[in-house]
């Protein structure tokens, strides 16, 4: 299906044609708009609706009774019950929301102090005496949301009940499908296209009309973006696709206004790449730009006076057309006659190749890379150095070094307690120079010796392999490798090597730097005793890495860092500041095990190197008069020159988030349009992102992405056009930055996230809800209906999860925390939403199309459709069953869980366990059909990730902690008693949010100034 349309707003967009083929009426969801939810259960306490959710037929009653494979034990349910009863969700009419003197937190029996905490349950976890289905869901559970009885019966237009199921109902896959009349909670599973369906084709500008108002397709779903005059969501997403007209309206809406840029994202199969506009041959001039605001040519430029003049749609300035860009206009429609040849007037994204010296700060050079590999004990004995070196070697041998054919060069530094440099000029024999002075490091060899073209670098790699016996560590000469790790010094040396030319540095370390510059003390590592302590540990120990990163960014150098360690503590919080400050990415692999994690490191490295697209880049975002740029977040170098952001190196994964601020009333109708029709964009805002950069071949280029969101004065429009992915991403980035900077304790950050969520929903409830629905129901805007569950997921993720009290389940080490926070602050929207609400699919029974490729239908897209993924299921432990097998992907990890009754043969068909670890069999003989399809699914997921390579297999009841510590925490809809307050189940969280909204309603009602906005919203 295409964008999930809101028929009330979009008006004419028909429902997707193929929905009928699915077993479940998918469109039912599509027609649904706003959701309402009764707050109080109508049933008396003690009767639950939840338990009525039918159990999957596959889970036989007997099995359930014998061993409930669930995460929530008896105690959990009890506490839910007790907690709910205490909050007082008994009857909406009686008590719509708690009295102000009884705030949520002060409830007499908060969750955290449940009489029957998880750990001390008298009924042991999984005890057969309390069968899962029998008593838990039997009668104790209070009614929660979505009971049919709570629905508003005559809903206002634009409102829909919770009734539509959230994932397609399939005859053979009844998992989680609601029973008749059983409503479900809004989940990302609901917005997925049906398994095996054709990818949606998303036109950035609908034919013959102004750019759309609805949000683009969800980033985590497959779609084909077509640039029909405006930039596709592949490159740029706005948090709201209708821009509030002025700042007070924006302040009221409370949805963060901003955009998420992934300017160098690779096109999906079937998508056209960004088109080139080559200016190097056309007289050497630059691109057509407005002489007033310097905005670049875009489809919004309107040519007048037979093409002699044009109006800039950003600032409204009337410019004389320079002679080199002169072209007459067609008097009939005002379009330039050369429009068919001038991509910049036709498409939202173009890539100029410039020859004009104005765009060169220095002579552009082909990319230069430096790889720093840890060959100390922490790198050699764990096998990390071997993987790192092999990865680089494989890239070189495959001739896949970015810019390799146009003069790109690579230099390699290895380090233990000293630094080792390799001079690759010699014939066959490389020469090594050791720099033992790591407190004052330097690069001892000249650039022509250090940097080598790929073919020569291969011999250097071989030399390193031999020197450290990387292929056979038992042959290591000269005793055990030194334990000292001079990572900081190695990076300083890399900085010196690249100081004049800029470039990309990849650091691979197996441990904490222990000698020389940037040496770190082991200040943490044990259990984190308090929040203040954790805050201190998340702050860097020394400003060394932050400063170094900033200095490198100034020199147009960016660092990616891979920490793959067996050490319990590597102070990732300090180390990861280096990639963060230099616009790179950081990866942390704890409990590194060469046998299974080798491919992960390899993939991370290979993708990081291969993914480099732009060097020496500078990003500038311009917007229509009335809008200005605010805070930048994401992966770029810290130093900002006024409004230009230095991004030393950008790649396919580079993300930048940018806040937009109002600078008065937004002025539109400045330019007009050149493409669709003279008036097509006339009322639209223009937001343009220009990136001046050097491409891999050493050419200077400017990539320009332009969008034309409409301006609105209707508050509801902002909600209708809100882009969940961008909103979540903006919120997460901001929260992650606050936590990582160490300025806020985590609980404050969590609180801010919850509060912001509640506030957005409150605004919607207050200003956009039809007056008629003045009830106590929880009302969610259709576009943001997943916001609560996303935020809940983030709160329960390793980035923000509170440390469990007294239990090991879900403990997050400071290192993992830091890595997750860095990930959040630099991840793409699709990564963030996946991180927030992991994708869990059932593998033991597959949909009809799942795991199979689909041939092109109707000849488009020519490549056909990718392997279809099974529909995902809610992240709740109640679906776990002995004979089931699940795959869950949270963007950082891919876990495979299987119950005790799963066929070991199937596992062995999927995985090769001969080496003692689970290795995915890929395309091997002897796989059954199911195993082959499962392998295909896993492979498809892995291929779509730049950092994931490996399936962590977590069998039920596994003793290695994979299930307990990695799998179960991902089931975010479950209640986690150990996490105290934040251990809310999904339903509880909605309750919390609802309570806050109602609190606000109570308070804000008295505030007069909001009245005005209410009026504004309904004008």
């Amino acid at each position, binding site marked *: 299906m295409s964008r999930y349309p809101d028929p009330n707003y979009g008006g004419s967009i028909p429902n997707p044609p193929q929905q009928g083929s699915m077993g479940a009426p998918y469109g039912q969801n599509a027609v649904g708009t706003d959701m309402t939810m009764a707050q109080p259960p109508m049933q008396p306490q003690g009767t639950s609706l939840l338990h009525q959710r039918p159990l999957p037929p596959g889970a036989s009653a007997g099995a359930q009774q014998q061993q409930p494979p669930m995460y929530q034990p008896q105690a959990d349910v009890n506490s839910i019950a007790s907690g709910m009863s205490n909050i007082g969700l008994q009857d909406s009419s009686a008590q719509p929301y708690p009295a102000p003197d009884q705030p949520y937190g002060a409830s007499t029996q908060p969750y955290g102090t449940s009489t029957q905490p998880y750990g001390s349950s008298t009924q042991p976890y999984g005890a057969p005496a309390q069968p899962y289905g029998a008593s838990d869901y039997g009668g104790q559970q209070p009614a929660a949301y979505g009971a049919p009885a709570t629905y508003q019966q005559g809903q206002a237009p634009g409102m829909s009940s919770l009734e539509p199921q959230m994932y397609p109902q399939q005859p053979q896959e009844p998992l989680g499908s609601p029973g008749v009349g059983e409503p479900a909670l809004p989940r990302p599973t609901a917005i997925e296209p049906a398994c095996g369906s054709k990818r949606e084709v998303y036109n950035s500008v609908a034919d013959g009309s102004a750019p759309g108002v609805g949000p683009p397709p969800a980033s985590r779903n497959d779609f084909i973006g077509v640039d029909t005059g405006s930039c596709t969501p592949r490159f740029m997403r706005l948090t709201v696709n209708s821009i509030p007209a002025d700042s007070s309206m924006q302040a009221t809406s409370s949805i963060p206004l901003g955009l998420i840029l992934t300017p160098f994202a690779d096109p999906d199969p079937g998508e056209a790449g960004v088109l080139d506009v080559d200016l190097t041959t056309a007289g050497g001039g630059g691109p057509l730009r407005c002489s007033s605001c310097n905005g670049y040519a875009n489809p919004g430029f309107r040519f007048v006076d037979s093409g002699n003049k044009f109006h800039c749609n950003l600032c409204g300035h009337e410019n004389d057309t320079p002679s080199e860009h002169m072209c007459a206009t067609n008097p009939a429609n005002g379009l330039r006659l050369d429009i068919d040849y001038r991509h910049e007037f036709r498409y939202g994204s173009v890539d100029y190749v410039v020859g004009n010296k104005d765009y060169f700060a220095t002579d552009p050079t082909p990319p230069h890379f430096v790889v720093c590999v840890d060959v100390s004990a922490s790198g050699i004995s764990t096998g990390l150095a071997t993987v790192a070196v092999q990865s680089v070697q494989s890239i070189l041998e495959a001739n896949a070094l970015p810019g390799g054919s146009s003069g790109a060069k690579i230099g390699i530094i290895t380090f233990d307690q*000293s630094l080792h440099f390799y001079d690759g000029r*010699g014939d066959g024999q490389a*020469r090594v120079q*050791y720099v033992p*002075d790591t407190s004052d490091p330097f690069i001892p060899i*000249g650039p022509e010796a250090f940097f080598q073209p790929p073919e020569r670098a291969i011999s250097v790699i071989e*030399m390193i392999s031999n020197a450290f016996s990387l292929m056979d560590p038992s042959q290591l000469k000269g005793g055990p490798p030194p334990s000292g790790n001079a990572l900081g010094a190695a990076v300083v040396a890399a900085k010196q090597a690249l100081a004049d030319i800029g470039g990309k540095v990849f650091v691979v370390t197996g441990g904490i730097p222990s000698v020389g510059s940037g040496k770190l003390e082991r200040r943490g590592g044990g259990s984190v005793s308090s929040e203040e302590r954790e805050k201190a540990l998340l702050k860097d120990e020394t400003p060394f890495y932050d400063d170094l990163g900033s200095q490198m960014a100034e020199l147009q150098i960016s660092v990616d860092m891979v920490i793959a360690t067996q050490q319990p503590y590597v102070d990732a919080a300090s180390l990861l500041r280096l990639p963060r400050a230099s616009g790179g990415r950081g990866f942390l692999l704890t409990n590194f095990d060469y046998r299974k994690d080798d491919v992960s490191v390899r993939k991370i490295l290979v993708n990081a190197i291969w993914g480099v697209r732009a060097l020496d880049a500078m990003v500038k975002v311009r917007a229509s008069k009335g809008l200005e740029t605010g805070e930048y977040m994401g992966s770029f170098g810290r130093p900002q020159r006024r409004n230009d952001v230095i991004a030393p190196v950008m790649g396919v994964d580079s993300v930048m988030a940018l806040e937009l601020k109002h600078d008065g009333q937004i002025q539109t109708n400045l330019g007009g349009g050149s493409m669709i029709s003279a008036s097509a964009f006339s009322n639209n805002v223009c937001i343009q992102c220009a990136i001046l950069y050097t491409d891999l071949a050493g050419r200077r280029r400017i990539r320009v992405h332009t969008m034309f969101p409409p301006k609105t004065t209707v508050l509801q429009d902002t909600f209708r056009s809100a882009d969940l992915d961008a909103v979540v991403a903006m919120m997460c980035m901001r929260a992650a930055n606050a936590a990582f900077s160490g300025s806020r304790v985590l609980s404050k950050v969590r609180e801010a996230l919850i509060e912001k969520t509640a506030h957005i929903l409150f605004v919607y409830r207050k200003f956009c809800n039809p007056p008629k629905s003045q009830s106590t129901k929880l009302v969610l805007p259709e576009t943001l209906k997943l916001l609560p569950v996303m935020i809940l997921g983030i709160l329960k993720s390793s980035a923000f999860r509170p440390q469990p009290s007294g239990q090991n389940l879900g403990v997050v080490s400071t290192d993992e925390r830091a890595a997750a926070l860095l990930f959040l602050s630099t991840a793409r929207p699709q990564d963030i939403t996946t991180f927030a609400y992991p994708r869990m699919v059932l593998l033991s029974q597959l949909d009809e199309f799942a795991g199979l490729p689909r041939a092109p239908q109707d000849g488009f897209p020519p490549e056909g459709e990718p392997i279809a993924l099974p529909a995902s299921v809610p992240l709740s432990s109640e679906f776990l069953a002995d004979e089931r097998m699940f795959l869950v992907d949270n963007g950082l990890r891919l876990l495979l869980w299987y119950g005790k009754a799963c066929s070991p043969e199937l596992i062995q068909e999927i995985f090769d366990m001969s080496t003692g670890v689970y290795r995915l069999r890929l395309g091997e003989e002897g796989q059954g059909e199911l195993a082959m399809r499962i392998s295909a699914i896993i492979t498809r997921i892995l291929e779509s990730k730049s950092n994931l390579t490996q399936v962590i297999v977590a069998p039920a009841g596994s003793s290695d902690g994979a299930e307990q510590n990695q799998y179960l925490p991902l089931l975010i809809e479950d209640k986690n008693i150990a996490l105290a307050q934040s251990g809310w189940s999904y339903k509880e969280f909605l309750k919390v949010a609802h309570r806050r909204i109602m609190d606000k309603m109570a308070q804000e009602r008295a505030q007069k100034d909001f009245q005005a906005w209410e009026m504004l919203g309904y004008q």
Partner: protein
Amino acid sequence: MNFSELEERDGLRWSALIWPWSRLEATRSVIPFAAMYTPLKNLQNMPPLLRYEPVNCKTCTTLLNPYCRIDPNQKIWMCPFCSGRNPIPPQYSEIAQNNLPAEQIFTTVEYMLPRPMAPPPAFVFVLDTCVSDAELRVAKESLMKAISLVPPETIVALVSFGKNVNVHVLGFTDSVKSYVLRGDKDYTSQNIKDLLNLGIIGSQAVQGGQSVAVQGATRFLQPISECEFMFTSVLEDLDKDPWPVKQNQRPKRCNYTALSVAVALLESSYQGYGARVVALLGGPPTQDPGKVVKLELGDTLRSHADIERDYAPFYRKAVKAFDTIATRAVNAGHTIDVFSCSLDQVGLYEMRSCVDRTGGYFVTSEAFSHPMFKKSFEMFFKSNAEGKLNMGFQGSMEIHCSREIKIAGVIGPVASMNKSGNNVSQEVEYGIGGTNTWRLCSLDPSTTLSAYFEVVNQHSSAFREGQYRYVQFVTKYQHADGTYRCRVSTNAGLWTEGSNINQVRSSIDQEAAAVLVARLSVWKTENEEAFDILRWLDRKLIHMCSRFATFGETKEAFSLPVNLSLYPQFMFNLRRSQFLQVFNYSPDETAYYRSYLNRENTENALLMIQPTLISYNMSSPPAPALLDVSSIKPDSILLLDTFFYVIVFCGERIAQWRKAGYHEDPQYAALKALLEAPKDDAASIIEERFPYSRYIEADEKGSQARFLLAKLNPSISYNNEEQVGQQSLIYTDDASLQVFMDALKEQAQQSVQNS
């Protein structure tokens, strides 16, 4: 008296053999009472090595010598130095007047001490890579040649430097590896040891039962037999310093740090064993604490005038820096040799203490490709007939003397070991004094020390006829073959009563005296602030003449005895020499020249002060000629040997003949023979000399003639040109010898009259 014969016996040359009895008389005699001593001189009449420990006096530690009286009956021997009585040790029980051990017969003997062998000597090569590719290639070839010359068990290490210092791994490696240290950083010795892991003492790597190098340093220090391939590969791979040099700049060079690293390498692993740091420098240090000049070419290297007027901003700091290296090397007993190959100065003046105090050599030439470097370098590593290097290591020299005299100091390539004793003068210090033992980090057969003494007898003390003064030199060192040696020279000399001036006068060795005074004057000018050395020299000469010359009524009646007749001329030439005149000489040249004056034997030192001139012509056999411009004759060829260079100078007519090619005509074979004779002689001189002398061919009135004219007495200059007509003349304001002598006679006479 034939002083050379005496020198052949003990390697000793005294300024005077007979000394006045009292301090007062000694002072009046003006000349220093001192000896030129060549400890390792190859002596014809020395007995074979004595393979046992020497016997020493219990009281004054003097070793048993021929002047000891033996009383075989009482089994005692009397020490002539302290009159102590010592029992004859059991191994000498057979001793009798007609059965004496060698040390009782020969005044100079050498013991080979029965001790475990020292490890083979180590050489750390320090190679400057901031030179042109061609130069570097030649330097590398020379290094290859060097390691092919030295015995294969010799231990070598290679340190190359430019902007940074590379210490190359020669052991346990299958690839070319080096450790790099920052060139512009002042590492302490401890830093270097830590960074290079030199301090780690692992299992001792034993090679042939000899090597004692510890694990950490064995990576860098390896016997040639083990590492020749590696050494060669490293050298082959060694490139010019890769760091770009800007158009108007010098390369970044860290001579100081490189030396410091090399010294540290040896300090930590080879302390107490023979080792040399051999530095091949191509230019001045420009960035480290030893920096002597700025990077910019516009900043010229300091001159003597700059240093004097304190216009040399880096001078003091650099001297201080190199002094610390010298001190470290001396403490470890290691030598630093500097081969500088640059058209410009390289800062030898600042680093002179590194070479002078450690017994090293300076060799300078314009380029690595210049024969002066190549030949000198080869000679340096040449082995002797036994296949061993011609040098000793870790030496020390102790002087014993009888009570009437005390030791005033030693001048030479030595460092003080600060060992005081009763025989050390408290009042005067000539050269390195305040000790009776000096360290000679290395020494070779030409190393010659000058030892100065003070007569301390009071004038009133009774003089007894036939009393002798005794001086014993005990030199211990490691021979290149690994054995520990001890050479003992004992000398007895006569006293004479103070009034008997003739005896003293007749025993003066004017050559030795001149060299001793020259060394002393150089010492004074270098170590005493604002010292006017020429006035001091003049005064000394006048006093000496007034003491020893005979005077008449007229000036012409002034005469000196035969054995002193040349002394004024030596002084005249010394005054004009590069040792005391710094005008027209760079500080580096000065350091270089003075270093040789202080280490060569009497003969060579005198040659430096007053070159020899031999005249060749058709009519007579070659004959020494006056060092005077009047010796230039159109039909003669002159051969001038100044030690540092050798000039063959053709008279005007001979030059014309040669240019006309007559010598190629068989008819004029005699001319050919005449042309070749001085060249052959020059070649044979140069062949034997270290450092390899610069060879110059010059024609009268040619540009190269200036080298000759600078050394000649300007008896004909434009002051008196008219009197002599068409002769060659020297354009100078300097006084000629005649003028000098006239003034001297006058002054001496006045001095006599005044006293």
